Every structure is written in C-alpha cells, then in structure tokens.
C-alpha cells in the first residue's frame, strides 16, 4: 500500500550526505521538515536552498522556527514555500503523514 512520508532532517547539508540522499529519494506528496542543524539548508545562495526550491511543488517544506532563529537565520531571507512551525505543529504534521523517516 502506498503511504505518505515525512522526511525529518537534522544535519547541515554542508557537513553530511543525509540532505542530498533524502532529496534524491523524496517522492511527490511527501514532506520535508528541517530541524536542528538541518535549518542551515536555508542559508541564502547555497546549493542546498536552491535544490529545495527546485523540488516539485507537491512536496511541502517545513522548518522548526526556534531552530531557525536560534541559529541566526533571517526569516525574511527564507524561501516563501518553507512554512515555519513550532513543536505542537510538528506533532500535528507527524499525525498527518503516515510515517516519519529520520535521516
């Protein structure tokens, strides 16, 4: 049976292969949530943020707002398609997708 999947990323794309790997295998209708150092994927003008922008529009992108702000990323610079969420939202997201894969 086909099911929906939320990819949970926590490593910075600059230091680790998890980011590239998950982008390679992510399917349409799936979601991508950046937490901890994975929010560095949102640094402007990086290949990571460009790669995320190129994902099909059916893939929803999320980032944990506290992790974004804690690392000094400017909210104004973030791509519009990235939704900033808090922990209660993250719980709700996990219930909306059939399963969660942590890379």
């Amino acid at each position, binding site marked *: 049976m086909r099911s929906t999947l939320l990819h949970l990323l926590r490593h910075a794309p600059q230091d680790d292969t998890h980011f590239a790997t998950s982008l390679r295998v992510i399917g349409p209708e799936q979601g991508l949530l950046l937490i901890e150092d994975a929010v560095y994927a949102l640094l402007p003008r990086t290949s990571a943020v460009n790669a995320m922008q190129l994902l099909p529009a059916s893939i929803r992108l999320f980032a944990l707002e506290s992790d974004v702000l804690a690392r000094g990323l400017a909210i104004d610079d973030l791509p519009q398609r990235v939704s900033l969420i808090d922990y209660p939202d993250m*719980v709700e997201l996990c219930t909306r997708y059939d399963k969660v894969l942590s890379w």
Partner: protein
Amino acid sequence: MKFAIALLAGPQDPAARSALMFAEAVLAGGHQISRLFFYRDAVHLASTLGVQPQDECDLARRWKAFINDNGLDAVVCIAAALRRGILDAAEADRWERPVANTGEPWVLSGLGQWVDALQTADRAVTFGT
C-alpha cells in the same frame, strides 16, 4: 494517537532537547506516548551522575522529571548502556562494578522493546540519528 519516540544522541547533542520538546508537545496535544526508547549515546541521559553547570540546561534531570510526571515507559537499550558504563543495581552486581548509576524510572532492556514499540505505535519518530 500512540507515539513511540526513540532517541539516539546523547545529552550534549541538540537532539536530546528536540526529542523532549516533541514528547512534551505530543502529550500536550492529547496524544499518548506508548514507549520512549534510548539507544546509542542517549543512554547517558539515564545516568544519575552527570553534573551540569547551574546556568546550563540539565536535560538528564528534565527527561527524568518528564518520565516520572507522566508515568511513561522509558526503556534504555541494555547493550548500549553496558558499553557506556550505564548500569542499574542488578547489572552493577552482575558485572561486579563498584557503582550503579541508573534506576527508576529508567528500565534497561533489549532492542526487542524498540521493535515492539515500532509495531504497536501509530507513529514512530526517531531523534538523533
């Protein structure tokens, strides 16, 4: 919904806090936590011996309080714990070590407990991979 939450990274990793914040939000959202499973360096959270500077967040203490306050099932992988010197009274006795540094509410047990949690929960979320 029933959530199973696994944590694989230790107290010094941001994942130890992320997992706790998530677990608190799960309960606050009206869901249940069927099991917490602590694996790899996360077993250090079960140690009673860590001393944190007063102005820093003491995650081991906060996890313990969270587990106690909510009567949660908190399983620490026994193989990972023994490797890292996290022993309850029974294991300290069994391996003839001079001190036990963990105990209730933490329970030392095997990987099968994670498999069981994956099977019985509606959602399984892993932190600290």
